[in-house]
């Protein structure tokens, strides 16, 4: 099927396969359509269908809340065309210098619990994938409608045959329950890499990471990349990682190793929202500092002298992300230096 898009920056044409979303089709062919979550929650990929037949994957998608379906308004990440379609997209479509995403098949491996409600899993890919640190993939299974976004934890400078991912269990959540049932060997569909909240050493800035729960995933990839290129020889880094209690922490061993190879330039603070008191640093991992409070509040108190010439990465649940964005801006960080993923 042929898709024609009129945007504020001109016209774009591409093909769309059977059962492919318009967003995936465009991105796969290098048309840099607007998106953030790629999974129906943020509304950024809205468009208006001027002609053509289509089918909506997820009618109740929160991102569609303010659209007018009777006028043909759609979310491109939730729409399968049923014929040639002509669309209008109310924004600019700029060229991209990121790796083009593509669909791949994958096999789930090594599903293991890290805490009561956090699980690590690997996906062995049918074809290796190059991605930037901080990017994510959309994972689908034949048992569930719609994809779920997960950020890569690992970083591979060439291309990765296997993705390391981490999931924080959402009570009653479709993919959460599915994965926690133990799914080693199960086949999944993977679309990626996606996401613009990426780390590029050539930017040469100090880095600030503020993560709530599994929001630490992309930060791990960023830190892995930074350590691989010895970035902390010349730049400073600060990571604020929020969980509820000490029992809910994970990746401390890895974080501690990052600190140890940072020439003293990386600080990691684990913020505990549901502990009333704690030691200054972790008993087993003394390289990691501890603090009590919500992670964005802990970060707010500690970033005043870190924002000059810094780039900040923020990921986690939306209220935490909004709190962190506020803290960063209050400390003078311009929006162009803030990159975020909202996990809703």
């Amino acid at each position, binding site marked *: 099927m042929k898709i024609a898009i009129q945007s*504020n920056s001109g016209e774009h044409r591409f093909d769309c396969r059977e059962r492919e979303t318009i967003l995936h089709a465009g991105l796969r062919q290098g048309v840099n359509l607007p998106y*953030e979550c790629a999974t129906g929650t*943020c*509304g*950024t990929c*809205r468009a*208006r269908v*001027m002609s053509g037949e289509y089918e909506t994957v997820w009618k109740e998608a929160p991102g569609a809340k*303010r659209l007018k379906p009777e*006028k043909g*308004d759609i979310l491109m990440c939730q729409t399968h065309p049923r014929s040639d379609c002509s669309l*209008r997209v*109310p*924004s*600019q479509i700029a060229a991209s210098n990121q790796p083009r995403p593509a669909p791949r098949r994958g096999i789930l491996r090594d599903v293991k619990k890290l805490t009561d409600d956090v699980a690590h899993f690997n996906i062995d890919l049918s074809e290796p994938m190059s991605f930037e640190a901080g990017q994510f993939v959309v994972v689908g299974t034949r048992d569930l409608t719609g994809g779920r976004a997960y950020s890569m934890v690992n970083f591979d400078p060439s291309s990765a045959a296997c993705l390391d991912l981490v999931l924080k269990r959402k009570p009653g959540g479709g993919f959460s329950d599915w994965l926690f049932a133990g799914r080693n060997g199960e086949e999944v569909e993977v679309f990626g890499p996606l996401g613009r909240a990426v780390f590029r050493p050539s930017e040469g800035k100090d880095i600030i990471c503020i993560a709530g729960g599994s929001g630490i995933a992309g930060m791990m990839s960023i830190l892995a990349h930074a350590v691989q290129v010895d970035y902390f020889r010349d730049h400073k880094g600060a990571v604020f990682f929020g969980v509820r209690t000490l029992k809910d922490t994970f990746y401390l061993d890895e974080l501690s190793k990052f600190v140890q190879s940072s020439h003293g330039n990386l600080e990691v603070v684990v913020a505990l929202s549901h502990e009333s008191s704690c030691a200054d640093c972790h008993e087993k991992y003394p390289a990691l500092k501890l603090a009590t409070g919500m992670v964005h509040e802990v970060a707010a108190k500690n970033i005043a002298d870190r924002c000059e010439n810094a780039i900040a990465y923020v990921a986690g649940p939306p209220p935490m*992300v*909004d709190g962190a*964005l*506020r803290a960063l*801006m*209050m400390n*003078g960080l*311009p*929006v*162009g230096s*803030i990159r975020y993923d909202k996990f809703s």
Partner: protein
Amino acid sequence: MSWTKICDASDVSANSVKKVDVNGISVLVVNYGSGFRVIPPLCPHMEEPLEESGIVARCTLTCSKHLWCWNMQTLEMQGETEKPLKVYESKEENGAILANIENELTYEFEDEGGADDDDFFK
């Protein structure tokens, strides 16, 4: 001309916003430190209530939803913002914020009776 008192300047602390209803019209008062602005209460991007999503810092109003932002002094769009902010004419007099509210300012999210679809691009 209908200059109306919106609130006292002291009701809105520096770097914050406050939603006020004046004669059935909701407006948002923005105190950006060195001055005030009176604007419609919704983000022109996707109608997010700026009372909750608006962050004021360094003379800039940013909507935390997708980070559209505007310089409050010059009203210049910043970063990837694609729509200008509408503002009511306003002034500060004897500690009060006044705005000239002729008609309610809205963005073209709604298009009652319009046969053309151009609202989508406005």
